[in-house]
C-alpha cells in the first residue's frame, strides 16, 4: 500500500527560511551578523553546564555562532541531513570529515577525478599524518571494490568531477561502502542540493565548498559538512573515535550520546575545537545572501550551459565538449537519473591546436574571467593543466580526465548570447 506523509517545505522555501527565526533580541527579519568572539555566561553553574553539554547554547564562536548556525541549519534542511558544521573553506570541510573518522593507519578510497586542492590534501599531505589514499577511476566500480582494504575508513568522490565532469554513481558506491561498513562522503560543490540531494541518493556525508554555487557571488571562502545521520557507527565497529570513550571530552561516547548525531558531536567538540577551522559570522552572512537565491540561479546556470554546450559542439575549432547533459557524454544516462534538472554549469572542452591554441583562446576572451574558481555569477575560464592541477604528472592528469588542451568553463548568469559571442571571437583567435 502506498502511503503519503506530510510534505516538507520545497527547496525554494528552505533556501529562504530554514534555520532562521526572527531575531529573538530585536525582531530583525534579516539574519543578524553576530560579530562576537564570545558570549556572556549568566552564572558559574550555567557556564559549567554549557561547557559540559548539559545545556545547548553558544560559548565561543570557534565552536558555534548564531549567524553561522543559520547557515548550518539551512544546509542541513536543504540536504535532508540531521545537522551541519560550517567551516573556514571547502578544504577545511574535507579535512574535518577525515580527521573525525580516522587517524594514523587510516585509508581512503577516492575518485581520481578531483578538484586539485582535494587531491593535494589526500595525495601529498595526509600521508605525512599516516593516512593513505588510493585513487580509482570514478566509473570503474570494480576498481573501487578492489581498492577497499581492512583499514579503509572512507569512500570519497565529487558528485560531478571537477574539471573532468564525470558523474559519480552515488547509489552504486553507497552500496559498495555499506557492504564494507564504511561511509560514503561526497563533495557536492558542483551540483548543490538544488540539482540533487546526495544523502537521498545514498551518501552518508556530504560537503561543499560554499565558495562556489551556494554563495554564487564569489566574495567569500567557506565550506560546510552535512551528516545524513544514517550510518550505524556502532554496527560498523570501525570507528573508535565515535564509539569509544573520548578522554578529550569527559570520556564521552559520542554514539551513546546520540546515535544520529555522533559524527557531528565529535566533529564540533574535537575537530572545530582543536583544529579551529571555523566559519566567520560575516562569511556565513554573505553565504546566506547567495543561498537565498540558489533555486533561482541554478536553473539559469543549467539553461545557459546547455546553450553553450550546443554552441561549442558545433564549432569547428572544438574537438570535443564534455558535459553530462550532452547525449554524447559517457555518463549521460546516469546524469539524467541523478540530476534530472540538469548537471550544473561546469563544462570542459578540447580545443583543436593543443596547448598553444588554449593560450591564445584564454587570452582573447574578454567577458569570461581567467581565474581559479567555479560557481560564480560571472563566467570563468581556466586551463587546468597549467593551474589548478599543475602538480599532477601526465598520468594523474589523464586519470583525472585532463588533457594538455583541456579548457574548463564555469558558466555564469550573463546572457548566453553575450557569452557565445565572446567564445566565438576567442575560438577564432585561437586558430590563427
Amino acid at each position, binding site marked *: 500500500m502506498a502511503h503519503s506523509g506530510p510534505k516538507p517545505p520545497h527547496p525554494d522555501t528552505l533556501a529562504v527560511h530554514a534555520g532562521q527565526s526572527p531575531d529573538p533580541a530585536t525582531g530583525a527579519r534579516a539574519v543578524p551578523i553576530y560579530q562576537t568572539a564570545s558570549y556572556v555566561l549568566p552564572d558559574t553553574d550555567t557556564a559549567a553546564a554549557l561547557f559540559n553539554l*548539559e545545556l545547548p547554547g553558544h560559548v565561543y564562536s570557534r565552536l558555534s555562532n548564531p549567524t553561522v548556525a543559520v547557515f548550518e541549519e539551512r544546509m542541513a534542511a536543504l540536504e535532508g541531513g540531521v545537522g551541519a558544521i560550517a567551516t573556514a573553506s571547502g578544504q577545511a570541510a574535507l579535512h574535518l570529515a577525515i580527521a573525525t573518522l580516522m587517524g594514523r593507519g587510516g585509508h581512503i578510497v577516492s575518485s581520481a577525478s578531483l578538484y586539485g586542492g582535494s587531491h593535494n590534501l589526500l595525495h601529498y599531505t595526509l600521508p605525512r599524518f599516516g593516512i593513505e589514499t588510493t585513487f580509482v577511476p570514478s566509473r570503474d566500480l570494480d576498481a573501487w571494490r578492489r581498492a577497499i582494504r581492512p583499514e579503509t575508513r572512507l569512500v570519497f568522490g565529487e558528485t560531478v568531477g571537477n574539471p573532468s565532469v564525470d558523474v559519480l554513481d552515488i547509489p552504486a558506491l553507497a552500496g559498495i561502502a555499506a557492504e564494507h561498513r564504511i561511509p560514503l562522503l561526497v563533495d557536492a560543490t558542483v551540483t548543490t542540493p538544488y540539482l540533487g540531494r546526495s544523502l537521498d541518493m545514498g551518501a552518508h556525508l556530504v560537503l561543499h565548498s560554499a565558495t562556489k554555487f551556494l554563495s554564487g557571488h564569489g566574495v567569500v571562502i567557506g565550506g560546510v559538512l552535512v551528516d545524513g545521520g544514517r550510518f550505524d557507527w556502532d554496527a560498523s565497529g570501525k570507528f573508535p573515535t565515535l564509539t569509544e570513550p573520548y578522554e578529550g571530552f569527559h570520556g564521552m561516547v559520542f554514539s551513546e550520546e546520540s546515535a544520529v548525531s555522533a559524527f557531528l558531536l565529535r566533529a564540533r567538540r574535537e575537530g572545530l575545537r582543536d583544529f579551529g577551522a571555523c566559519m566567520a559570522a560575516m562569511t556565513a552572512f554573505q553565504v546566506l545572501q547567495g543561498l537565498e537565491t540558489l533555486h533561482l540561479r541554478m536553473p539559469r546556470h543549467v539553461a545557459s550551459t546547455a546553450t553553450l554546450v550546443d554552441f561549442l559542439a558545433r564549432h569547428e575549432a572544438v574537438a570535443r565538449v564534455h558535459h553530462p547533459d550532452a547525449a554524447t557524454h559517457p555518463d549521460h544516462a546516469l546524469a539524467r537519473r541523478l540530476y534530472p534538472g540538469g548537471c550544473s554549469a561546469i563544462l570542459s572542452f578540447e580545443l583543436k591546436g593543443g596547448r598553444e591554441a588554449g593560450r591564445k583562446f584564454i587570452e582573447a576572451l574578454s567577458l569570461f574571467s581567467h581565474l581559479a574558481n567555479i560557481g560564480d555569477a560571472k563566467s570563468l575560464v581556466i586551463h587546468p593543466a597549467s593551474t589548478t592541477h599543475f602538480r599532477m604528472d601526465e598520468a594523474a592528469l589523464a586519470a583525472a580526465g585532463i588533457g594538455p588542451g583541456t579548457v574548463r568553463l564555469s558558466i555564469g548568469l550573463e546572457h548566453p548570447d553575450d557569452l557565445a559571442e565572446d567564445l566565438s571571437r576567442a575560438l577564432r583567435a585561437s586558430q590563427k
Partner: protein
Amino acid sequence: MNFIVQGYPAYAYGGGRAFDPALPAIVFLHGAALDHSAWQWQSRYFAHHGYSVLAADLPGHGRSPGTPRESVEAMADWVAALVEAACVERAHLVGHSLGALVALDTALRHPARVATLALLGIAVPMAVGEAFLAAAKDDSPAAFDMQATWGHARHASLAASAVPGLSQSGASRQLVARAHPGVQHADLAACHAYAPDPRSLAGLAAPTLVLAGERDQMTPWKAGEALAARIPGARFRTVRAGHAMASEAPQAVLRELRGHLAAGPAEP
C-alpha cells in the same frame, strides 16, 4: 549503563555519570520509536546536579535488545522492574508521549516505586490516526515523515534550532528511521490502545506535573490540561514548543522540571 530487567539485558543512559543509588533517582522515558537521546540535555543536566539518572531505552529501542512490549501496561511493569534493578526504592518519572503514558501507568500499577510524575506531551486517550498507524505498520518512510513533521511545531524545519547546527526534524526523522522494523507501529498501537480506568486517576498520589507544548500538533495542549484536571493536585504548565519539547525548548523544559522536582516531596 546496562542492567538485567525482567531477565533480559536493558540499557539506560546515565547522563555522563555513574549511577549512585544513594542519590534521588530520575527515570526518563522516551516517546514512540525514539531512544534515550530524546532526553540528551535534561538527562545530562540532572546527572550533574544532584540526581542519579536513568534515561531508559525501552525494550527493543536504542541500545536495549529484544522486541517492544505490546502494551503500555507491560512497559510500565518493565519500568518498575528497572527501578528495582537499579537498587533504588523509588524514582521520579519523567515521560514524553508514549513515555508519559508509561510513566503514568507505572504510578497507577506500582505506586510505591514512583516519587513524582512529570508527563510531557500527553493525552489520555492518545488516539493515533488510521493513516499514521497503517503507514507505520508497513514501515513506510511516510510514517517517519509524519512523526518528524507532526512531532514538532508547525514549520519547525524553517525555525532556528535550540541546538546550534542541528536540524530538529531531520534528527528525529533519522532516529525513527533507525528503529527496528515494527517498533514504531508497536509503540503507536500501544498508545492508541491505552485506556486506563478513568476512576484510577483520582487515586493518584504522586505529585504530578503535566507539561504541554503550546504548538503541539500531536497531543494538543488542551488534552494535557484536561488530563491534569483529572489528577488530584496536578499542576498544568505549558512551554512554547511543539510535541518534541525536550529538544525544541530544552531550556524551558529544564526550568519546568527543576521547579517540579524542587516542589516534590522530601526525598526518602
